């Protein structure tokens, strides 16, 4: 009896997970559809670059929203989506990076190196992308157990990467900074939440005795 209930719950969750996975592919699907139907406008490469960059930032912010949402809304299960969201951030970052290397620069290594060295917004975008790689590589269960406490320390780099990503966007814009400022405001909120809770935990000593011992692995508190 209990067992079957568990099974249906598990099935529901699996369906939810597959649904979320497919939903994360929608931006790519729409971009592909627009490309196929020749609806990317006069400068398709610019649209592809901007779209993949935008979705990288959106997924990064969604990933960083998981912990606050879990705590504030009390939906513990959200944590099970975080790794997938983080990896989709990396996926869209890879598309963005590939667009730049291939479609924009056409593998002109000389120009790419010059760009990365000389253009602060590209330097920052490049650095942020490269910094995502170790996080993506260490996102599997084996690495989490193997790295232990250091895993958490390593993955805190995502805060700096997010700041880098938003500044990368801000520096690229010619005059209308509305959009990067919106991303910046959301990121500020998400980071402020962490600063506040970290301080709160330290002063109440809650860090050692968690009030909700629901989650088993140690990925939860960042």
């Amino acid at each position, binding site marked *: 009896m209990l067992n079957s209930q568990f099974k249906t719950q598990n099935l529901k969750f699996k369906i939810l997970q597959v649904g979320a996975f497919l939903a994360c592919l929608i931006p790519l699907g729409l971009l592909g559809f627009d490309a196929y139907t020749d609806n990317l406008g*006069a400068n398709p490469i610019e649209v592809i670059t901007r779209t993949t960059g935008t979705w990288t930032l959106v997924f990064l912010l969604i990933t960083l929203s998981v912990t606050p949402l879990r705590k504030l809304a009390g939906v513990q299960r959200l944590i099970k989506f975080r790794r997938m969201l983080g990896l989709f951030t990396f996926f869209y970052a890879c598309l963005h990076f590939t667009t730049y290397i291939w479609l924009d620069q056409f593998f002109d290594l000389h120009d790419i190196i010059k760009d990365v060295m000389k253009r602060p917004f590209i330097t920052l975008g490049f650095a942020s992308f490269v910094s995502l790689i170790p996080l993506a590589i260490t996102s599997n269960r084996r690495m989490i157990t193997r790295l232990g406490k250091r895993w958490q320390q390593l993955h805190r780099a995502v805060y700096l990467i997010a700041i880098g990503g938003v500044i990368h966007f801000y520096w690229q814009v010619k005059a209308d900074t509305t959009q990067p400022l919106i991303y910046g405001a959301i990121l500020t909120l998400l980071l402020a939440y962490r600063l506040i809770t970290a301080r709160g935990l330290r002063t109440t000593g809650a860090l050692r005795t968690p009030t909700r011992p629901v989650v088993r692995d140690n990925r939860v508190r960042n």
Partner: protein
Amino acid sequence: MLIKKPSDIKGGEITDKETYLDRRKFLIQASAALATMATGFAAPGFLEPSRAQAGIKLAGVRKSPLSTDEPPNSFKDITTYNNFYEFGTDKYSPARNAKSLVTRPWTVAVEGEIKHPKVYDIDELTKISPLEERIYRLRCVEGWSMVIPWVGFPLNALINQAQPTSKARYIEFKTLFDPKQMPGQYRGVLEWSYTEGLRMDEAMHPLTILAVGLYGEVLPNQNGAPIRLVVPWKYGFKSIKSIVRFRFVEKQPLTAWMKSAPHEYGFYSNVNPEVNHPRWSQARERRIGEFTKRKTLMFNGYGDQIASLYQGMDLKTNF
């Protein structure tokens, strides 16, 4: 090259253009007056006479030896990919939003250090010199370019009518300021109204034109109707759109982009692959419609005609 074959009977032979335009103006004004009486106010964009303007074929357009023989970009690309912040800051917004611009009636003030200050009606202004087709390269400061078949006349025709005094060393240009027609002006992205400027010798140069048409037809709103500047050897933003005022001045005008980011945009803004934008390289450009980038040419390829204007000037400091 895409030159449309003129029809056997010119539009002007069926109905004299003057009569036709006067009738149009009369109808618009009369109906506007009626609408105003009926409702107590004139609703913006209610009559949209501007929409009727774009697409009208321009008569008697001559070809010009100053045109490039490169293949022009498509009408669609030229009219859907625009930087015109008065109608939104992304390049696809102007085509959607510029319908609200009313280009008739339209007046242009010519004033300042000149012997003959005058307020022109747009239809009078377009007749001061025969219309020519000028197929020019356009290089945007953002790193893309197009080839565009403008229709217009040399700015020097207007300058010669105005008769500048010895004090006139620059011309300051202004775009219309009317947020109701140009909703982008509700947001302070740039300091409105958009201001540009040229040195007198740049303005007098035969390559510098006032464009009123595109592909042989009246200029669409998103491309700067009813009248815009085109200076092909400078970055696109110098070619100010929807002009309402020319002022001849003694001192170098402060342009909208100079006010916005003085370390990034200078007064001259000549296309120069060796002087980079502080945030990106200007060495190459993507010609719209092409896959790989091409090298950007000094003065956008117009060097042999205009380089002498800048002899002895340091183009790195005068960017």
